[in-house]
């Protein structure tokens, strides 16, 4: 029982970190960025390259991965999203194609074989019978730190308030003197950084391989759909619902079914409550 509690907490923290960058774009830019999963892949691989092949310090590896994530996010916003001018279905198709292209690019650079990331901090701690690696613990703590600072950023800073305003009403925000394009650029950059950092942790949680972007994308999609248009708090709650459901199903029913509940939840919520469990909320 305690084991389920701890495992769920750890997994959910990671899921929240994965989903929050995706939610951010969806609530401010109103587009579903299916290349979001590719940020995680790019983050994971950049970390792998800089810290494991070049041997830079791990913290520098994470920082470089985040910077590359920012660059990717900005490039996608400038080159793809702005060109398509807010046609949400077209953006969805284009970013899906882009994700496959980026995956192929990673195969081109690093090869098809899966790589194992060394744990960021090695070691295992036993918490009442449950073995918890420091690595996962660090990932969870980092997710919480990042989520809280993001929350404070959105609530307290001028830029964050501008983001809230754009997410509520873009025209209104523009009339009040906010440049929506600038807000969107910042959002896409932040989202890229969040995705890339989440990718480092996700890859060290599972492994690093070119197809790794699909499952975190589906988690992010599930969180957005189940939670409704995203608030950060809502993302956190839904990430915990999904994380705990997966852990409970894995340990109580069958490990193979862990993904099934997530899918059933997505389909069920979309058919029964298309606006999501929490509906429209403030960021």
């Amino acid at each position, binding site marked *: 029982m305690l084991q389920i509690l701890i495992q769920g907490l750890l997994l959910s923290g990671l899921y929240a970190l994965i989903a929050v960058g995706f939610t951010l774009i969806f609530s401010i830019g109103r587009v579903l960025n299916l290349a979001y999963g590719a940020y995680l892949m790019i983050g994971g691989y950049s970390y792998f390259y800089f810290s494991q092949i070049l041997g830079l310090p791990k913290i520098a590896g994470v920082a470089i991965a985040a910077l590359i994530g920012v660059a990717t996010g900005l490039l996608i916003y400038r080159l793809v999203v702005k060109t398509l001018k807010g046609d949400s279905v*077209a953006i*969805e198709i*284009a970013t899906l194609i882009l994700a496959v292209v980026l*995956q*192929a690019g990673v195969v081109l650079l690093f090869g098809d074989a899966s790589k194992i990331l060394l744990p960021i901090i090695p070691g295992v701690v036993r918490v009442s019978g449950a073995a918890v690696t420091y690595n996962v613990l660090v990932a969870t703590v980092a997710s919480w730190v990042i989520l809280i600072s993001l929350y404070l950023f959105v609530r307290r800073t001028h830029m964050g308030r501008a983001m809230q305003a754009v997410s509520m009403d873009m025209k209104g925000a523009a009339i009040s003197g906010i440049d929506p394009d600038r807000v969107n650029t910042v959002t896409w950059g932040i989202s890229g950084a969040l995705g890339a950092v989440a990718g480092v942790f996700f890859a060290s949680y599972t492994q690093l391989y070119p197809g790794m972007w699909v499952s975190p994308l589906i988690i992010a*999609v599930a969180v957005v759909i189940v939670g409704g248009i995203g608030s950060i708090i809502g993302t956190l709650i839904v990430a915990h619902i999904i994380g705990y459901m997966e852990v409970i199903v894995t340990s109580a029913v069958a490990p*193979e079914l862990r*993904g099934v509940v997530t*899918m059933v939840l997505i389909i069920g919520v979309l058919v029964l409550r298309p606006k999501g469990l929490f509906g429209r909320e403030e960021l």
Partner: protein
Amino acid sequence: MNIRWYHLALWAAFIIGMIYLPQLVSKGTLRTIIFANYLAIFAISWDVLSGRTGYVSFGHPFLIGLGAYTTAILTKRFGVPVEISIPAAVLVTMVGGSLLFLPALRVRGSYFALVTLAFMELMYQLVQVIRPDLTGGTRGMSGIQTLTRGAVNGYYLSFGLMASLGFAMWLLMKTRLGTALSAIGMNEEAVRGSGLNTTKLKLAAFMLSAFVAGLGGAFYVHYLGSIAPRALFDINFVFTIIVAAILGGASTIIGPIFGAFFLTFLLEYLRPYLPGAERYFIYGGIALLLYMYEPKGLHHVLQMALSAIKGKSRS
């Protein structure tokens, strides 16, 4: 019905040309064309639903897989003859199509695409878990009865299927049904406002799409003789279908066919230089640029070029 004589003449020329093709090309090329034919069927199926109505499906392998698995299980595990198993597969796929239709009643646009993606992933995971003795689990099935022997026969079967489905869909889309479906893609409210029952129309689009996908999937698995969940319920497969349809030109019939051939041959000719997944990099890049700057596809580019030439010769 907006059919001109040259439409039919073009179809006839296309079909006659394809019938003579096996005399001209090698067996290896023929196998490539067989794959292109099946891809064209899947792209037509995708296009009837998504290209027209704007309900973008990211989970088309869900429908194809339903058809393929049904007939594979029936023939291999229960010894049912293909004459019964293939129609059964099509029926099951159409039931699956109506499952996919349920969310389309409530959500549209980007949400709908995501729910189809969820359907595909669900199918991928369920196939491996539920009754692996029937589905073959993660490893899939092999040794499924094949309908034809040799490349030439396989070619004729796949081409016959593709051409008849393509022609039938083309005729159907020339009727008022096709017009109404395209109108839904443009503005669903307006179609409802003009007194048409959009629910029925959408259901028709889903059923047609499922019918084509089920038939294509069933014949495809009887051509391959094997089936594996990872190859089928794969986002790369979705990508190939969508790119074939939009590269050629969505909401036409000849577009997806053309796109499928273009794509398959591009992949085939890139193989010597870039073995493996790197080819996706090239053709994905081409597809992305084309989609962003010429969303109507190669079909439209060719038409523009054609009318430009005509215009010049006149003046």
